[in-house]
Structures are given as C-alpha cells and as structure tokens.
C-alpha cells in the first residue's frame, strides 16, 4: 500500500520503531484512515505533485535560497555557517509547505472547511492563507496566552478571513489548542479537514507532514553540493513539535552528517520552565501518538515554557523520538537568553531578523560552529522570520515603545 518512493516509512500502523501509532479516540479512527488513504492516493498521483510543486514554486517562492552567512561565521569563529532561508517563504516560515499539501488533500477529499491549531501563529497564518486561496471556511484554535503573545499573527489570520477561536483550558497554549481542535474535529469530521501543523499527532500526520516538508532538506542538500561542493558536516534545526527539523534532517539521515535538534531550554534545563521533551522527558502518549513528552510521575502533562510560542509544547514528533532513541539524532538546547542573543547577532551581522524559534537553532549552530574548523560546514535551518516576535523582543530587551528613538 505504501508508495515505494517514500523513504524510511513507518509500519502500516504508523509506528516509527516503538514510537508513533494512532492513539486516537474511536470516533477519529475512521476519519484518520480516510486521510491516510487519500494521502497515499494523492502521493501516488503525478497530478497532485504537479499542482503542489507549481504552488510551491509560483505561490510560496520555492526553492528558498541557501545563504553562506560569512559575517555570522566570522562572529562565531569556526566552521562556515550556511542558512537555509525558509524565512523567505510566503507567510514567513516553513509552515506553508505543509498547509499547501494538506489543503490540496482536503480539496481532493471534498472538504469545504478546515480547522487548525496554532502556537506562534505561523501555522495558523499558513492555514488561513491557503484557506483564503482555496476559498475554504477556516477556524483557527489558539491559546489565549499565545493570542496575547502573537497579536500581529492573530490580526493577519483575521484579515485572511479566518476565525480565530481563543482556547482558555489548561495552560491556554499550543497543547490546549490541539486538544480543542481535536474536540471540534470529533464533532465535525464529516465536512471538516483538520490541517495538523506539525509532524506529530496520530498516523498519518507525522508521515504526511514530514513528506510535505522534506523539500527543505532535499533542496538544502543539493544547494550545499552546488555551492560548497560538499555536504555539511552538521545540520541544525530547532524542535518544538519538530516539523522544520524533520523536514530538514530526514533527507540527510543517510549521509555522514551530524544531525542536531535544538530544544527550547527556556529558563534552563534544570529549571522547570523549559520545553525540552527529548532531553528532559520520557516516552508517553499524548495527542494521538507515543513519543517523548514532559509529564510528572502521575502521567499528567506538565506546563512548559519558552520565549518562543512555537516551541512551547510538551511533546515532539515520533520520528524524531525514534531517531533520538536510536542515537542518530544529537540533542542541543538554547535558553530564552541564548535565543535573544542569537536573534540580535544574526540581525546585526547579516541583516536577517529570525523568528525566536529559529533563533534557538542559530544560537546552538553558532556554538557548534565555534568548536569546529574553518574548512568545515554547519547548515542551519532558518525556519522563519522574526517580524511576529518584535513585541516579545521589545519587552524582553526593555525597549521603551514610547520613545522609539
């Protein structure tokens, strides 16, 4: 049933080793199966890919550049730093690679309505964008706390014609938005498609979202060979749920490249305020799959923290969990402070304002580069741009908005 050109496919139940699967409520099992069947049919259909690639090229603006960041390299001191510029995608982040794919799928399935969860608002914006283009009704579930942190993206979604539904349960952040979207989907799956935003959740989402994002790593691989004449020694990506990371790292896993996932250390890995589910969590079951998560000894999911709303999530995708458990994936982390420093460093050195999520990857990538030789190469996924984070950064740096000069 699986198309043979899907590399490293999970088993038929969506398990990546001991992780993944479909731990969903009975009511969702059939809707998930329908998405799975539609996805495999679409994936085997050249017309689906032709339309997807046309949109990725002419609407999203792919291929995104690979940029040799010489000034940042000089600042870090060590290996050559190359940035995969996912921030240059339409809507400002990698998220649209996935929403284009899933919206095409929703249309193939005859669904007129889409829903999505969002944390930082990037997935919400990317979903609202494709919903506007495909003329679909769109409801975005977003934690009240994230609505406060990401006001510009909330307004963007509204302009695009989406309803932004505030979620007040639990910690009012991304995990609660997922819970609420799942609850709504249970009651509306007949006419509604749930555009899941990361490579996590029940099968087939981890596989499907990965497939829509591997374009990142595939392009980067070819661009490294074309520009530098070789593959990078290290590839670095930040990890919340893990969609930009799996998109970048999956196509590189069969090469002799160190793969590094950077988690949000928040106030520090030894504090209780971080989102490092791989480094500090353990296997458990949340949101439809078995993977690493942050919970207490009673199995209750714990509150997380990161300055970046997009990384503020207690779980992680099952394929990354499997790559970590097998030793293929290295872990690193960056604190809120590290991310703020890297945010400013990249902005000043290269004139590129990164998303706070991506700033975690920049922070760790610079550190790694500093420990390497100048003839070596570090590839960092710059997953999004930072305009949406200016309010947060202004607050964090104590910038007085009243006296802008």
């Amino acid at each position, binding site marked *: 049933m699986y198309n043979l050109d899907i590399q490293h496919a999970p088993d038929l*139940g969506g398990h990546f080793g001991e992780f993944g*699967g*479909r*731990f*969903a*409520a*009975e*009511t*969702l*099992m*059939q*809707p998930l199966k329908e998405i799975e069947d539609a996805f495999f049919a679409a994936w085997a259909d050249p017309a689906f890919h032709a339309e997807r690639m046309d949109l990725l090229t002419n609407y999203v603006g792919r291929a995104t550049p690979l940029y040799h960041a010489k000034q940042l390299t000089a600042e870090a001191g060590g290996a050559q730093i190359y940035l995969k510029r996912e921030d240059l995608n339409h809507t400002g982040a990698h998220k649209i690679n996935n929403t284009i794919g899933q919206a095409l799928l929703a249309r193939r399935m005859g669904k007129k309505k889409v829903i999505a969860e969002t944390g930082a608002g990037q997935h919400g914006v990317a979903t609202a964008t494709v919903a506007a283009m495909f003329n679909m009704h769109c409801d975005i579930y977003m934690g009240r706390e994230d609505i406060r942190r990401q006001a510009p993206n909330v307004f963007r979604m509204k302009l695009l014609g989406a309803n932004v539904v505030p979620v007040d*349960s*639990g910690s009012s952040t991304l*995990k*609660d938005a997922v*819970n609420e979207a*799942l*609850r709504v989907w*249970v*009651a509306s*799956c*007949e006419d509604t498609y749930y555009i899941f935003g990361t490579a996590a959740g029940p099968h087939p989402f981890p596989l499907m979202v990965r497939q829509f994002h591997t374009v990142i790593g595939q392009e980067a691989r070819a661009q490294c060979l074309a520009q530098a004449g070789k593959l990078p020694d290290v590839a670095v990506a930040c990890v919340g749920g893990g969609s930009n990371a799996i998109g970048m790292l999956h196509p590189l896993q069969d090469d002799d490249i160190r793969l590094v996932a950077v988690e949000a250390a928040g106030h520090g890995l030894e504090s209780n305020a971080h989102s490092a589910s791989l480094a500090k969590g353990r*296997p*458990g*079951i*949340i*949101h*439809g799959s*078995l993977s690493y*998560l942050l*919970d207490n*000894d*009673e*199995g*209750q*999911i714990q509150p997380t923290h990161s300055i970046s709303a997009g990384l503020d999530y207690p779980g992680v995708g099952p394929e990354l969990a499997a790559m970590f458990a097998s030793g293929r994936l290295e872990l690193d982390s960056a604190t809120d402070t590290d991310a703020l420093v890297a945010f400013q460093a990249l902005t000043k050195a290269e004139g590129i304002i990164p998303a706070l999520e991506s700033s975690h990857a920049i922070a760790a990538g610079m550190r790694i580069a500093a420990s390497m030789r100048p003839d070596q190469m570090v590839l960092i996924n710059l997953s999004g741009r930072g305009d949406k984070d200016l309010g947060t950064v202004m607050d964090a740096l104590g910038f007085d908005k009243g006296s802008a000069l």
Partner: protein
Amino acid sequence: MSQLRLDQVFARCAQENRAALVGYLTAGDPSILQSEALMLKLAEEVDIIEIGMPFSDPMADGPVIQAASERALEAGTKMHDVFAIASKVRRANPNIGIIFMGYANVPYTLGFEAFAAQAQAAGVDGALLVDIPAEESAICAKIFKAHDLCHIMLLAPTSTEQRIALAAQVGSGFIYYVSLAGTTGAEMGAIAEIKEKLSLIRKYSNLPICVGFGIKVPEQARHIAAFADGVVVGSHFVSQITSNLQDSVAMVEALSVAAHAMSAEMPRAEVA
C-alpha cells in the same frame, strides 16, 4: 472473575427486564474526601460505576468533565487515591461492576503492569482507555488479561463494519457505544441511528452494549434503555457537583436524586 461479575450484572438486569445504569464521576472531584462520599452514594444507585481517572489533557471530554478533571487535579488527586476510592466502593458493593475510564498516558506512565495489579487489588473489573483503540490494544492487552481486567472498547457512529469486528475481537467486559460523534456531554444522537448501529454491532459481538455520551434527561435514558443493555450517564451526574460546589451535603443529595431519576427509567415497558 471480572467478566463473570459484569456478566452477572447484565444477567441480573435482563432478568428484571431493564437496562443497566452505568454512572460516571471523576475521582477526586471536587476533593478526594467529597469524591469518596459521592462515589459511594452513586454506587447505591447504579449497576456499574465508572470511575474517571483525572487527566491534564482530556481530549475527548466536553467542558463539564474537563472542569471535573481540573478540579480533581487541583485537589491533589493521585492514582493511589483513585485506587483507594475504587477499593472503598468495592468493599461496600460486592456485586456492582466497577470500571476505570481515562486516558492512556496515566496508566502508561504508572506502568501498565503496576496499574493493572493495583486495579485488580482494588476490585476493579475493567478499564476503558479513550485513546487506546483496538489497533493499539496490544500495548496493554496481555497485562490486562493477566490481571483479570476487562478491556472495554469504544465504538462510535464513525466505526466501520471492519472496525466493529476488530473491537469485538479485542474487547471484553462490554462495548461502550458513543451515541454521537463529539465530546462527552454534547447532544445525543438520533435514536433510530443508534438502534441501527447497535444491531450491526450485535452481528459481530455477544458482549453487552452500553450507550453513552449526551444522555442528560430521564426521557432519553428511557428510549435508550428500551434496546441497549446499559445506559451510561456521565456529564449529567458530574454537573450535579458543579451546581453545588459550595455545599457538600447538597452535592451528594443532588447526585442521589439525579441518579435515582435515571435509575427509574431503566425498566423496559412490557411488550403487549
């Protein structure tokens, strides 16, 4: 033993020409002590008591049971309290069915072995884990079996014939049919559709079928009791707690009245 006990519950009800009343409350809501009193009271009125294990992220529950879970966790409810409550209910009621309902991560984190052993010791007959569908049941099936814990499967309006067959194969105790595609406490589905689906399920399984989700008024219970083996009432009972949060005595009383009213609708009308 546990399957036998549940079988006996349903057999007794069948003999009395009525459906079994299955009542749900979240353990530890609104406090451990109050919950104990509420559970003991509910156990007097129902044939099977469903003890909810509170969870931080109850994805399949509507607002009423979500709030119950939050109150229970805020009150400091731990799994050892849940086992203790079950154990007390069992000691006071040797013949009723007792099942746990909850989400996979709680028993997973405890370890399915430790979970099943303690449930067995407390006199629990079965467990229903919302996010462990038939396809994933291998993760705990053998352990549950070894500890004589029935593995209760959910079926829903969206369940295909193939899925019904699968649930029939791996499930035990009884089948919990979700009357609507939605979360707990939403509006009940149409009676005719529920009835039709139950006939389909009966083609694949000899297990008793209980119908739940959205049963709030006695009249609905009466309609379901006419053709189902059991009627599950959850959010409606929990909301008796919600409306009397300031008064422990009134809370127990309101629950008792609500349970009694539902119980009165279980007998099936004599067929002329």
